[in-house]
């Protein structure tokens, strides 16, 4: 396991999340160091995707009374993230605060979610121009570099629905990277793809993992990819961490029965 002498870039402090009566996360705590690549595994409904969605602020944590003592707070880069400090106390974050803080977090979705009304190039430049206030030229040159990186420089003038799923997902990766995120969230990015298109997307992600120091949180069923890319695997079940370890150890010698059962089920697919 990597030593965590530096401050964690992400810290969950007794985080709760419920959807109505359904408690998905129950006082979940963990830390992730800068530059770590962490894969979250576990059966569906175990809360993995919820963790990513909380970090992207697509969901908000279920508030806890007196967060200063009782936690229920997500911290990013040493500052409260789900909450904000006001008068020395933590309060639930406003949309304005979230907008300021989520700047450094990017996400790639299972369903790509490219904007169908924009050509590929504009999908990658739009947010740079409108939220980072980059000039059009700067955004375009950055977009072209990234599209080149994901092997799609010939598709800049296509609309998303003229591309295959794998190509769309690679555009989505370029789009997320264009924002220069410190943290990249990958939510089952190959699950919606035809099997023959998975390798290209994973190849691109491997390149990015090799050449950058972006912190990555990965939810995936591709165990081979998890093994190659991540330096830590966290096994979730019912909103709690069952087991965490290096990928080598967790895949070859899982300690917990639930991990063993889960891996057996996934690998036999």
């Amino acid at each position, binding site marked *: 396991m990597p030593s965590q002498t530096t401050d964690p870039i992400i810290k969950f402090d007794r985080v709760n999340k419920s959807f109505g009566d359904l408690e998905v996360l129950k006082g979940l705590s963990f830390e992730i160091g800068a530059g770590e690549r962490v894969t979250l595994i576990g059966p569906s409904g175990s809360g993995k995707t919820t963790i990513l969605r909380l970090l992207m602020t697509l969901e908000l944590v279920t508030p806890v009374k007196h967060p200063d003592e009782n936690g229920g707070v997500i911290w990013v880069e040493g500052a409260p993230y789900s909450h904000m400090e006001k008068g020395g106390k933590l309060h639930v974050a406003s949309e304005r605060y979230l907008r300021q803080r989520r700047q450094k977090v990017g996400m790639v979705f299972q369903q790509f979610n490219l904007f169908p009304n924009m050509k590929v190039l504009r999908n990658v430049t739009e947010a740079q121009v409108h*939220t980072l206030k980059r000039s059009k030229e700067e955004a375009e040159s950055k977009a072209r570099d990234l599209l080149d990186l994901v092997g799609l420089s010939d598709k800049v003038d296509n609309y998303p*629905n003229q591309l295959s799923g794998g190509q769309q997902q690679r555009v989505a990766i370029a789009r997320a990277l264009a924002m220069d995120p410190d943290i990249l969230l990958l939510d089952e990015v190959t699950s919606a793809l035809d099997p023959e298109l998975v390798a290209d997307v994973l190849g691109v992600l491997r390149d990015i993992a090799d050449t950058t120091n972006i912190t990555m949180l990965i939810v995936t069923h591709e165990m081979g990819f998890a093994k190659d890319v991540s330096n830590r695997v966290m096994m979730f079940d019912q909103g709690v961490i069952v087991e965490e370890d290096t990928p080598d150890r967790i895949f070859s010698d899982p300690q917990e029965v639930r991990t063993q059962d889960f891996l057996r089920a996934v690998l036999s697919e």
Partner: protein
Amino acid sequence: MDWQTIIDSLPSYAEPFWVTVQVTVGASALALVVAFGLGLMTSSKHLIVRTPARTVVEFIRGSSVVVQLFWFAYAMPQLLGIQFDYAILTGIIALALNYGAYSSEVVRGAIAAVPKGQLEAATALNFTSAQKMRLVILPQAWPEMIPSLCSFAIMLLKASALVSLVQIIDLTAWAETLGRRPGQDLLVHLGLILVIYFILAWLIWTGMRALERRAKRGLGQGHPTTRTKDTETVGGVLGGLEPDDHVVTEGGGDRA
């Protein structure tokens, strides 16, 4: 009946024709503004914005456009003590509010039909609410609205004939006036304007079809989608629209 007299009288239609066009185009344009205003408001997540807009929409839709027209022509001037110098403005406002309220449901439905993932992606890229609406939601919702808005535009054209009941000399009023003169034939004149209205409806429909094709191209869909084909099989100037909302919501499903 004297055909020569009838033919000689045709040029006198120019001005009433222009009135009908002005009422229809003016009210359509204003209705579009009303529709987007109310549609955006009824789509809001804030109750304070949504509730008043919802109330206005239900209020207008629940009542009768004919009565509303008379209300604007006769009750409002007394109530507020204002009288428009430009009489057709009354007609334009009454029709625009009514059809704007109906169309706002189309706008709301099309906005609601934009897949949730699009909003999430926009959040992940840190767009503001206004940017999400302007850059992501409306460009996608707009092509879905066009067929239904077209239907409402044609309904508005038809309803424009009602302004003849409040002393505005449009096609209908003029046909009735002219048709009663000596040597004229009322049925010929009424028949004639029926044909003119039909041609105008056809023009609206053709224009909207072109607009829809262009809008779909802007989504990278070279060919009209399933929904457009539906309209085609209905084979009419006017598609198989429903009088109430849901028009777009149903069609929007196939994009998910």
